[in-house]
């Protein structure tokens, strides 16, 4: 009987499965398991994985940390509103804050070196979208996320906000320089 009516065989769970279904279920299951395994595999052998490192913080505490880095390592200013350009030593902890509607400060990094990047927001939720590398992270107020980043190409990068954050959202762009 059709799918609009009760099964004609009341013991439908005892009917044999069609061969074509069985074959497909096996193939699909195999693929599902392979896709599942890919994620832990990439954690071991891949080079792009998020750590689970994050801390609870407050806007004041986070802003203080960012300011300390800016005070210590600013090398010049840049952009329409003279943002400090900070060049911290390779391997160090570096900070960027999100607020309505800035990414602050500008960072200058060395190609091929690793940095521990901290991200948090002082107000609403924001989206850290590093272009054209196309790395996208969610930035939440009250949470300080730490990711180790290793630039692989020198150049000028933009940080576009890709989490809607009100009327100035489309003006929220920051800068990261990567030098040789």
């Amino acid at each position, binding site marked *: 009987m059709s799918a*609009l009516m009760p*099964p004609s065989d009341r013991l439908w769970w005892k009917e044999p499965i069609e061969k074509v279904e069985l074959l497909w279920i096996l193939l699909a299951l195999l693929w599902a398991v392979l896709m599942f395994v890919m994620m832990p595999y990439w954690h071991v052998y891949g080079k792009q994985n998020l750590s689970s490192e994050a801390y609870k913080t407050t806007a004041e505490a986070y802003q203080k940390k960012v300011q300390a880095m800016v005070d210590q390592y600013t090398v010049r200013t840049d952009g329409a509103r003279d943002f400090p350009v900070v060049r911290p030593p390779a391997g160090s902890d570096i900070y960027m804050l999100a607020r309505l509607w800035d990414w602050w400060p500008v960072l200058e990094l060395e190609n091929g070196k690793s940095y521990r990047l901290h991200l948090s927001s002082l107000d609403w939720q924001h989206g850290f979208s590093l272009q054209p590398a196309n790395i*996208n992270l*969610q930035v939440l107020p009250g949470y300080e996320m730490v*990711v180790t980043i*290793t630039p692989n190409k020198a150049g000028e990068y*933009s940080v576009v906000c890709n989490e809607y954050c009100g009327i100035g959202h489309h003006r929220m762009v920051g800068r990261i320089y990567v030098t040789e």
Partner: protein
Amino acid sequence: MATASEFRTCPDTGLLFHKPAEKLMKINAVVAVVFLLVGGVLGLLVGLTRWPAVHLLGASDFYMVLTAHGIDVLIYWLIFFEMAVLYFCSSTLLGCRLATPRIAWLAFALMLIGAIVNNIAVFQGNSSVMFTSYVPMSADPMFYLGLIVFAVGALLGCFVFLGTLVIAKAEKTYEGSLPLVTFGALTAAIIAIFTIASGAIILIPTFLFSIGFISEIDPLMYRVIWWAFGHSSQQINMAAMVAVWYAVAAVAFGAKPLSEKVSRAAFLLYIIFLQLASAHHILVDPGVSSTWKIFNTSYAMYLAVLASMIHGLTVPGAIEASQRKRGFNKGLFEWLRKAPWGNPAFSGVFMSLVLFGFLGGISGVVMGTEQINLIIHNTIYVPGHFHATVVLGTTLAFMALTYWLVPVLFRRDLVMKGLAKWQPYIFALGMSGVAVFMMGAGTLGVPRRHWDLSFVSAAFTHNFPETAYTLLGLMGISVVLAVIGGAAFCGIIVASLLFGKRLSLTEKGETPLVAEPITSYEGVGMGKIVAPGTFVLALVFLVSFVLYYFVNWKFLAETWGIS
């Protein structure tokens, strides 16, 4: 017990309609189509603004219209339609009176009031918080209140559905197990109850936050619980869509499921595993561990994806086997070539099935992979994906079903049959363009929900590649085409309900509305395979899936090191 005078038997399909239930189906379906119309117009405005050469709306109007577009189509169009589907699948398919029609009317009234209050809040302009309304950004209290009232109504509707199942069982209006389509609707209703509960858990405190009664809501907690509502509500749509696939296969071909056991088990996998989907939205958030992400995002080893892949085979497989049984047995694809491509109910459902799988399914699994999400999260790829699932999948399937419901439920003949033949193709072509070009632009990093890619008066600027602009232009053109297709649908349906020739309530019409059911697939197919053509198509799907999946790992491997 209901009296016989409360029922009518449809002369074309033999279905038994409970008159109070029939009225409720009609009103829910009509209101749904009105929201589709409103949401579609808003979608046109959004599309024309994101088309860089047109850039129609100003920034604040754009964000307001985008908020309304998302809510009106994602929530109101689909859920109102699903209420009609739930009442149909319980009362009509089981030949049973609807439980408590009065409460069903109350449910409808609450849903309508909630939807209107919510829309008014958005169009007053101080609730442009998007569909997701992420805290601590806050909307007008009426925004949340409208959603909550709507949700209470929808919950009541689900209970009326469940109550009807209980009555049908008690009054023995059917024998044995529920029909497969009703089982699919039950899946949708169970997911809906989970969804609405999650919505209540997060929206009630957010409402209290918006009136200043609660001082803070943790943004991560908000995201985890909100998405248990936001993503799961799309799973209601998916379960309902699959039920509609089975229904149209049964109506157009008399198709019997290949095996009840497999299809029902696949629905069961949805119920058990789909709820984990909220994790997809938290993959690049701070504060949740990789282990949690891997387990939840893969729906525990992709078991819900497996379920969708099963339905993707069993529905066309049953169509193929029925066609073969009717004599279209030559070669691999005669069954498909000789299918009724001029019948919008069939063509709509078939395209819904294929496009949901190829465009929506594959992209969804790829971007829901823990690490690959790094290069996709919050780019315009994301709306590209869900326009493929919710619009090409669910909306197209619901449109297809509506073509069949007009004569059966409303007893009106379709008007503009020539246009109706073409409508699913126009809509599917336009919307496929929307989905594909958005995904393409997203791969190049273009952000979603963004008014101005030229970053005028920003502290810094960024130049997206020329290709991104070309893709957004093509997207704009596709939006126009899709809206023409959508408008054609609304026009045909509204005109048919108002001016279509009335069909007799007692006598059969000229065109048969339901195919003779097939009772067995004995002797069809090739060798021991009943649906070899479908199997070949499924293999094409699998190969595309594998290739696209690994291409994205390659994209990921090319970016900066992150650890």
